[in-house]
């Protein structure tokens, strides 16, 4: 798969990706099952943040929505229309210096939809 797709996607999101590089004690991962995106936010210690903002951007760096971190560090939202073609950038900021991101590429989305995100 995927390296070229991811690289192209990365270039499109360079400005966004440059933002949250500082601290790595927050870890963010996002996956797709059916048409639902699940964002998991955890600290490297294993604890989960009690509050924070989840920002969802498209490949043009347009902010699509801002959500709150939910229980157990999980945030879920419906896959935005067209995201399967362009991918999504998901940034999570808990506090200053505690942020991370996950690039949900078109390949990630296609794979998640194909496997229901369970494999």
């Amino acid at each position, binding site marked *: 798969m*995927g390296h070229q797709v*991811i690289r192209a996607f*990365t270039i499109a999101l360079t400005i966004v990706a440059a933002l949250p590089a500082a601290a790595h004690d927050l870890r963010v991962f996002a996956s797709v099952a059916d048409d639902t995106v699940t964002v998991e936010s955890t600290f490297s210690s294993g604890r989960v943040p009690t509050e924070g903002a989840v920002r969802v951007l498209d490949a043009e760096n347009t902010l699509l929505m801002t959500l709150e971190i939910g229980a157990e560090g999980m945030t879920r939202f419906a896959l935005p229309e067209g995201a399967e073609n362009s991918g999504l950038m998901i940034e999570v900021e808990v506090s200053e210096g505690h942020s991370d991101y996950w690039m949900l590429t078109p390949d*990630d989305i296609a794979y998640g939809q194909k496997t229901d995100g369970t494999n």
Partner: protein
Amino acid sequence: MKTFLTAAALMASATTAFAHYGMIIPSDNMPGQEDGRTVDLTLSFSHPFEGVGMVLDTPVAFSVTHEGETTDLLDTLNETQVMDHAAFATEYRMERPGTYVFAMEPQPYWEPEEDAFITHFTKTYVSAYGDDEGWDTELGLKTEIVPLSKPFALWEGNVFQGIVKLDGEAVPYAEVEVEYYNEDGSAQAPSDLMITQTVKADADGVFTYAAPTSGWWGFAALNTAEEPMQYEGEDKAHELGAVIWVHFEPWATK
């Protein structure tokens, strides 16, 4: 006479038995999320410093363990060649961040020069997408080196520490052979003693080694099985190796 001695020395040199290593080498041991979602793995059996390969028959087992779940990957292996000998390769998709431990149990290898069988339980650790969770995973293999140092994200010159275990118990004063994967053949050993270095574990089975340069380093803790194996109707020793491959990174500056 001098010519004869030289030729004899050459023959002796050619037949010197250097250390055997089961090998699992991934294409990247710390892929970031920008590097794709798959890792290529190559399984082989060799003398890695000298670049001398041996045949790796179809392993008994090959698996990956992530977040406590082990998945059988034996059916995914494809035949390939490493150092001009039969080997195996596969591609694995890493779904989530964290540490993936790839482990191989080969078929026992009959080594006539040592009059013994050799089985190297071989593993390597891959940290996916910047997450090191699970770096100290113990698989519960017959024999195993359990890392005390993170088995990735090491600078050249750092020490690597591990506990040698056999049947789940630490092996006091276990002997651990250490060898560099001299992939491009550029490394030169001033003495045969430097091709395979040997350290011993302490009374708690803990060994320590500082890698002098970046690249892949193989650690093989060797023990002999209680039960011999049969070869042509005779009992033969069975060497059990606990092998771990660890990559050290070059010191980087801007």
